[in-house]
């Protein structure tokens, strides 16, 4: 296990993540231009989906595929429920719902790092894990929104000013005039579903998966230099940006106390344990088990915040976004992935 962690720490892409952290910490003026960073994130989703689709179409729908997808769906329902149960007693219910959604969903970049990690060690995971990734993205969102709607109904009967209240202020000074009480518009479920399913990152991933599956070996060959060849380099660049981002986000952690930091580390471990148990019972391979654990352990910072920011406007991004990005993402990248891999190996032999 230790050697796995160490090997991970000499991986070029992971090292660029550390470089980003360092450069961000010393407050350098280094900046990846936002449009390029956005392109890189779209590229990763596209390459990820395409390669998953290719793997899927060449292997077909195997027994393992069905098992992985069923386990994935189960985890996508259990983990947010568990998260909400733990959180609701300690923090306000809107934040609890948003954080549950975040941890119930998945992180594509963590997934990519994990698939690279296991493939580099000869334990490549199946293409169906990309399908699991896609399917595990959304259930938590819907669940969280339902929880928030329910909370909202109860809250509206009670106190007039919930946590996320936006009150009038000019130039950082609270305005003199009395701030009107906030009445968050209850966004209709239909609109939320529309947002969740038409989110760009989500659609690009699914679309690329389908295209990868449909375009066959010829498609695979012509696309290979783009989706395979330069993949590691662009991933390294993107992780550099992620490091910078995490360093910046770490400066905004005042809304995340020790309890939430703890949650951001323990919750992944709980999710990974669940996934590992189910995966072992189902007799999955080391690679599949590791990546499934990573899906369970990872928290979304793309799709979920993109939907929750207006589906649950009362929840604070300075909590749910910061936790998933600045606590759980680095934890999984540095410690989690090699740890889950080591345990998966140990459970399998």
């Amino acid at each position, binding site marked *: 296990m230790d050697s796995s962690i160490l090997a991970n720490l000499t991986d070029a892409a992971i090292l660029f993540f550390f470089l980003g952290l360092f450069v961000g910490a010393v407050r350098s003026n280094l900046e990846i231009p936002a449009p390029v960073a956005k392109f890189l994130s779209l590229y990763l989703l596209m390459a990820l989906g395409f390669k998953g689709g290719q793997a899927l179409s060449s292997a077909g729908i195997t027994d393992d595929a069905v098992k992985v997808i069923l386990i994935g769906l189960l985890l996508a329902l259990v983990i947010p429920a568990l998260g909400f149960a733990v959180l609701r007693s300690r923090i306000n219910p809107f934040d609890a719902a948003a954080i549950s959604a975040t941890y119930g969903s998945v992180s594509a970049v963590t997934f990519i790092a994990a698939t690279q990690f296991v493939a580099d060690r000869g334990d490549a995971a199946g293409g169906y894990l990309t399908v699991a990734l896609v399917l595990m993205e959304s259930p938590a969102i819907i669940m969280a929104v339902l929880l928030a709607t329910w909370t909202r109904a109860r809250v509206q009967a009670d106190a007039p000013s919930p946590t996320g209240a936006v009150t009038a202020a000019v130039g950082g000074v609270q305005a003199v005039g009395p701030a009107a009480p906030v*009445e968050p518009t209850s966004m209709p479920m239909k609109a939320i579903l529309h947002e969740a399913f038409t989110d760009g990152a989500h659609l690009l991933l699914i679309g690329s998966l389908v295209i990868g599956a449909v375009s066959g070996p010829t498609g695979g060959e012509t696309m290979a230099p783009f989706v395979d060849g330069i993949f590691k380099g662009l991933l390294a660049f993107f992780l550099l940006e992620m490091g910078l981002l995490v360093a910046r986000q770490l400066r905004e952690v005042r809304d995340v106390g020790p309890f939430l930091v703890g949650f951001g580390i323990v919750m992944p471990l709980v999710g990974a344990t669940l996934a590992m148990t189910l995966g072992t019972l189902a007799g999955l391979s080391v690679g599949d088990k590791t990546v499934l654990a990573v899906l369970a352990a990872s928290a979304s910072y793309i799709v979920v*915040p993109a939907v929750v*920011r207006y589906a649950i406007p009362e929840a604070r991004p300075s909590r749910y976004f910061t936790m998933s990005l600045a606590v759980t993402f680095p934890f999984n990248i540095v410690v989690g992935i090699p740890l889950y891999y080591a345990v998966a190996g140990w459970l399998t032999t």
Partner: protein
Amino acid sequence: MQDVKRFELVIGSANAGRFLDALDTMGLPHRTVIPGIYGQGQQGARGGDPFSTFDNTYVLVAVPPERSEEVVEALRPLLHTFGGMCLVSDAKWVLR
């Protein structure tokens, strides 16, 4: 030159569509929009994330003075729910 009221909105990019729709509904479809900008307000720091989840959009709308009140009334509930800044100032519109 003609008097106009100059509305400046700085709102979350994710919500910008709602504000623009409200203006469209009022028959005020003309506007200037700068997306992807940075800011800091009640809701914390915004801008510069690669997923464009939390950045701002700047919207400039020149409206006839007599419609100013109405626009304020239409935008206030949106500002109330989604946050953001709205400034109103005076300007002259150069007839072309």
